């Protein structure tokens, strides 16, 4: 599958995403934020970084970017849209996903490997995994504390739209394993149509053995519509 990786001024995981997708045998191209068109049938990645410097609020300016209407249209058409880290923040700001990402509870930026529990295989992004499976995926953010109204959290839970939760190495969802204080230990969610994924951890950082792990492969291959290999 082909992916458009959107490049905002201040994006810094854009090349990493292209590289990881290529390693997985997918096509990827960089699309500058001032462009206004995306091809149909093309997946969209909003990569990590500090779009526009993120001086106001993470993702707050990027939502007004010229490419965003095309991203929204793609999401509505049912194309795959993945927001990673800053991309997740942008998707929330743009209203493609509910809730918001706020300052980490511990106030520090944290870069480390987090354990994620897969909550449901019922999405293309998690189709390679089993419920309760533990993945290890790097995080690197200062504002990854997921917050939403109680009704929204309830809706996300009821519709099984929480795809990943922070857990410990044994797969237990416990407060000590939550790196940023996110409500319901949320690490990643999808939209009602299950074609838009937002996650704080970086699957593109764990697609090669040399990088210390390969648990990101299933997520990105799933996004590409490549089904689970038995």
């Amino acid at each position, binding site marked *: 599958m082909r992916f458009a990786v959107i490049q905002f*001024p*201040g*994006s*810094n*995981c854009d*090349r*990493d995403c292209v*590289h*990881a997708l290529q390693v997985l045998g997918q096509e990827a191209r960089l699309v*500058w934020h*001032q462009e206004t068109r995306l091809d149909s049938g093309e997946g969209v990645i909003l990569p*990590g*970084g*500090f779009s*526009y*410097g*993120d*001086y106001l609020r993470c993702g707050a300016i990027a939502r007004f970017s010229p490419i965003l209407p095309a991203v929204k249209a793609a999401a509505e058409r049912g194309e795959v849209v993945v927001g990673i880290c800053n991309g997740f923040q942008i998707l929330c700001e743009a209203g493609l996903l509910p809730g918001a990402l706020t300052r980490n509870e511990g106030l*520090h*930026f*944290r*870069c*480390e490997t987090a354990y994620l529990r897969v909550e449901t295989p019922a999405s293309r992004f998690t189709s390679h995994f089993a419920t309760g499976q533990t993945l290890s995926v*790097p995080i*690197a953010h*200062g504002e990854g504390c997921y917050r939403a109204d109680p009704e929204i959290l309830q809706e996300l839970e009821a519709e099984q739209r929480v795809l990943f939760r922070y857990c410990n190495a044994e797969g237990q969802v416990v407060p000590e394993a939550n790196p940023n204080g996110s409500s319901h230990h949320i690490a990643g969610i999808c939209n009602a149509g299950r074609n838009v994924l937002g996650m704080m951890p*970086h699957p*593109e*950082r764990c697609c*090669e053995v*040399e*990088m*210390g792990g390969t648990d990101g492969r299933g997520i990105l291959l799933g996004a590409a519509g490549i089904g689970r290999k038995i």
Partner: protein
Amino acid sequence: MKAKEFALKLGLTEQEYGTIEKGLGREPNENELGMFSVMWSEHCSYKNTRRELRKFPTTGPAVLVKAGEENAGVVDAGDGLALAYKIESHNHPSAVEPFQGAATGVGGILRDIFTMGARPVAFMDSLRFGRPQAKGEAGKRTRALIHGVVSGISHYGNCVGVPTVGGELVFDPAYEGNPLVNVFCLGILRHDQIRRGAAKGVGNPVFYVGAKTGRDGLAGAAFASRDLTEESKADRPAVQVGDPFVGKLLFEACLELYARPDLVVGVQDMGAAGLTCSTCETASRGGSGIEIELDRVPQRETGMTPYEILLSESQERMLIIVHKGREKELKEIFAKWGLDAAEIGYVTETGKVVVKAAGRVVADVPARLLADDAPVYEREAKVPAQLAEKQKLDLKKILPTQPKVKEDLLKLAASPAMGSRRWVWNQYDHMVGLRTLGKPGSDAAVLRIEKPGGGWVHVAMTLDGNGRWCAQDPREGSRALVAEACRNLACAGAVPLGLTDNLNYGNPHDPEIFWQLREGVEGMAEACRCFDLPVTGGNVSLYNQSPAGPIHPTPVVGVVGKVEEGVRLVPGVFGKGGGAILLLGTQESGGLGASIYLQEIHGVLAGKLGKVDLAAERKLHGLMRSVLKLAGVRSAHDVGEGGILWALAEMTFGEGSAGAEVTLPCGQGERPEEVLFGEGAGRILVEVEEETVGMVEPLAKELGVGCTRIGKTGGADFEVTCGSVKERWGVQELRKLFDEALPNALEG
């Protein structure tokens, strides 16, 4: 005010004023004097150290850009790939404004690297503070400095998307009044992408690109060339303010610009001394002149005087000279990235930097006079009166009759000085770019670098300094730290290619301080020659002293190397057990002189480090690289600060690492503490599978390097036997102290 009076007020000497007047053939005006005061400051001219720096070996087959030629050195990494790297200090700014001081230090070194045409791919930081656990105001201030500096580095580095992959963090009372913040950056490029900072081609346009000029950082280079005093806080306006977002856009825009064939003539960043430095240096290198018009300089404040515009050190600005007729292409690229690009002047054949404002000439100075003809001083050097006394060490008066090895080790692990640095590097994005192999905290950081034609080259790098060693014996300490840096690379299977140095010392007008500097340079130079290691540039930071006194003499070296073909990288921590532990190199501990053990456990800084056998060290590194090509090697770690017992303890701190049983011989008349905590050079620990022992031993014999089996890994406990000492502890117990030491001191 008379010109001469003004010159003295700016810190120029009477003699220097005379040279300027003679060079110009007339009385200089205030703008010109401002320009000379920064360009002839120690920071820009190395006037006090140039004679010493000439002692460094600077050439070698791998050197592509030599020390002093450009903003950073460049070495060949093979396959058409080159590495640009440099270290730079931001000590004074960080002392008065830790967050911005550190952030702009990162921004500054970043510009030095992409100015060379390289894509920046990694940072490392060497940080030194007082003790965070100190009582009262001093401790409070130190903790605030640490938080400020770490978040400043994290803010800038993370935002520009360049990983911070390693470094060092040292706490010592010697840095309480004057912290050290040294920042290193590595960039990658092809040989044909190297950029020069020379203004050539009469009539070619000179562009100013990047952020607008403001009143921040006025004469910061001059500020950095004075002692820190109680009044230094008043110099806060001399500290620049960084904007990493603009820094990121600027380097992406520049890299896009460089990729256009035959567009750029020369490029120079505006760091210290801003517009003044960039114009006179590019003109001087090009053997040309430059004329600029200040009214065209993008400004973010109104009413700035020519003096302020010329001396501003506002961040994220570059000077770029392009071929005439290609202006539009440059403007388009910078417009795409949303940055200012103003044509402020052109290249001339006059050899002069001519500055105009409102149609009037406000400065007219020969470029060479400003950039290259700063006076060079021979400073007086004197052996410190107290040195012999300091170097005496009477262990009988210090150590208890009965060794308390376990208690001492637990104390070390729980001390902020030795505790895990995870609290720091967790705040740095060390993975972005997908090049970092392993985590920070290893002997050396290793990156994979894409080869121009596909595939990877593995590059290793390390930052090392040791003020304690150098305080007790600056020459030996400096030899030892170069040896240690190369040993760290050897643990990653890498051959060192080049070295960048940051010489942090006190006031050079004090003959005892200058002696430390000279000894340090000579010691480093000797070690570099032994390792065939060229010095490709760096930074000198003097005047590091506060009313409490000077800092320890603290040269810091950054060494980059290439991992040899066939090397299999191994972690610095034990595997799950069942391996043999071998000590490669000497069995001599080097004694407890200048050790962290004496300082942290017994509160004594005394004695000196044993002499480093550089030839033996070199053989050891060769052996280590060969061992890493064998099958069955599980882990490797060098012995450094804290001695062999500390190195072994660190090897048990991995996720799921086993414990070990180790026996170390204790000689006649030797104290077990010396054997266990002595910091002598020339030793590496490796853990190998049983079958591999038989392969390592003959290899070591052939190369003439010691190889001693000292124990085996396994279990959840660590047991050490040394002379009369036999102690045992749980690996988890020790690791918990190690993990919590720093968070407890900084957040408790």
